[in-house]
């Protein structure tokens, strides 16, 4: 067994400790401290002779815990009522579509037939052929109740209009006037002028954006600008998302203020860096949420109406919304497949013709060659 000389260890420690000269007055200071603590009502508090730096980290952690608690609690207290069904984006969806009934005498309250419920996203609107030359279509957004200023509703719509060939240009101008009159603007426009020579029809689309409270009026104006073959509108209540974002921003700003306060009290570099990390993270979150809030503000301030205009006799196509992500990839793939099949079909005709021609030539050549051979044999 390995061991060592204990006596030597004792002597070495003794000698090392003897180098420690007891400071004069050390005992006196402790006694003074004891008298001070005895005289205080709140019990003895020990004052250190040296400055402590390590305590700052405990303070930082304690403050961080408070901040985290606050950040969780504030949105909870700010949330409104029981949870409502939400979609993947956290917004409550309200959508109305279906066959419209004749307009009610009270435009503020119209009945709705068709499918649709909260939390669902509609796929198509209804389309119909106008009968008896009079427009029987009425449109309800289903969110008239959402017109209160406290509500945030995102409204979009699509209308297909058919107009006479002579009125195509004037209709586009009229639509532009509708938007500007209602306090909005034209976001984009696109048109194709057809000619009799090419037997093509004029088509076009125009995207109008108007203040959300004028959306219903705009829809009404637009559908009377021509023959509306289909009308589709949807409204999304994003009030919950809006309130939640504001609460989270407020909580994060409180957290940021707390961390800034902590920063002023932190002495150690490690503590400062830790607080700085937290501050950077919170600042980034605030900016992201602010951007989302701004987007929601814009989307709920202006409603968007897409109007597809086509000349009478032209088969209208439903303008599709811009696809993104997997949906876009899937449709691109389908389109590519269809294009490939189309190409095969397209080249199949010429190929078949070439094949037939080749076969005929071969048959003719063989027949000619045999006739020639036969003639030579006869001669020979």
């Amino acid at each position, binding site marked *: *067994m*390995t*061991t*060592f*000389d*204990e006596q*030597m*260890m*004792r*002597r*070495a*420690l*003794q*000698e*090392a*400790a*003897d*180098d*420690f000269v*007891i*400071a004069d007055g*050390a*005992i006196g*200071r*402790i*006694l003074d*401290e*004891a*008298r001070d*603590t*005895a*005289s205080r009502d709140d*019990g*003895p508090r*020990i004052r*250190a*002779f*040296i400055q*402590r*730096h*390590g*305590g*700052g*980290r*405990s303070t930082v952690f304690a403050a961080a815990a408070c901040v985290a608690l606050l950040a969780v609690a504030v949105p909870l207290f700010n949330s409104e009522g029981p949870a409502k069904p939400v979609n993947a984006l956290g917004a409550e969806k309200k959508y109305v579509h279906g066959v419209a009934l004749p307009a009610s005498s009270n435009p503020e309250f119209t009945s709705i037939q068709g499918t649709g419920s909260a939390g669902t996203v509609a796929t198509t609107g209804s389309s119909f052929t106008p009968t008896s030359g009079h427009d029987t279509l009425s449109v309800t957004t289903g969110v008239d109740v959402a017109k209160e200023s406290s509500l945030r509703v995102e409204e979009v719509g699509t209308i297909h209009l058919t107009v006479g060939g002579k009125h195509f240009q004037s209709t586009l101008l009229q639509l532009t006037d509708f938007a500007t009159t209602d306090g909005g603007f034209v976001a984009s426009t696109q048109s194709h002028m057809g000619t009799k020579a090419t037997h093509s029809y004029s088509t076009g689309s125009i995207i109008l954006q108007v203040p959300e409270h004028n959306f219903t009026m705009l829809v009404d104006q637009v559908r009377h600008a021509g023959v509306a073959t289909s009308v589709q509108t949807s409204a999304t209540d994003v009030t919950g998302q809006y309130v939640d974002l504001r609460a989270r921003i407020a909580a994060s700003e409180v957290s940021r203020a707390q961390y800034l306060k902590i920063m002023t009290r932190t002495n*150690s570099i*490690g503590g400062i860096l830790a607080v700085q990390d937290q501050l950077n993270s919170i600042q980034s979150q605030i900016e992201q949420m602010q951007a989302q809030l701004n987007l929601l503000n814009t989307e709920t301030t202006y409603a968007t109406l897409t109007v597809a205009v086509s000349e009478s006799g032209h088969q209208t196509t439903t303008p599709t919304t811009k696809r993104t992500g997997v949906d876009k990839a899937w449709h691109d793939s389908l389109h590519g497949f269809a294009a490939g099949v189309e190409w095969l079909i397209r080249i199949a005709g010429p190929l078949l013709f070439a094949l037939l021609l080749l076969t005929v030539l071969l048959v003719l050549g063989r027949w000619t060659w045999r006739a020639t051979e036969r003639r030579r044999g006869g001669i020979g």
Partner: protein
Amino acid sequence: MSDAVDVDELRTWLEDGYASSVRTAYLILGNRPDAEDAVQESFLRAWKFRDSLATGSSFKPWLYRVVVNTCNSKLRKEIPHRNRRRPDDDLDDVAMIDDPIGRVTLSHDVISALKDLPTHLRVVVVLRYYADLSEHDIAIVIGRQPGTVKSRLNEARRRLAEHPALQSEAPRPITVRKESKS
């Protein structure tokens, strides 16, 4: 009135145990200011909770327990989070005063080896070989079973014996030798 009497009692404690306590803390902590601070804190804490010392219990281990706990607390909470103190306060720089060279070298090497021990082993070595407490009393001080103390002492001795500072040169005051288990 009662406080004045108690402060006199504290004075007695300090006169009897301050020097040994502060040197013990010095060996455990490795620097003078922390040792003084720890012992001041320990005495005031012990004095504040003097009623918790059970009648008939030994005062010395109890006081050492307070000192060791305070040192452990400092090693765990304060010292790792701040810059090291001035080098001349460290045990690494045990004063090279007019002592004979052998004595200084011995102290320096032992302290160097001691500082490389983990805290729980350093504490038992200091209590055993400097404070001269029995294994039973050390068990009281650190709040463990005597068997744990024995085991820690064995581990500390093994590590010290194998430490390069205590092996490199010969002759050394501390020698490693083989012996049968006693």
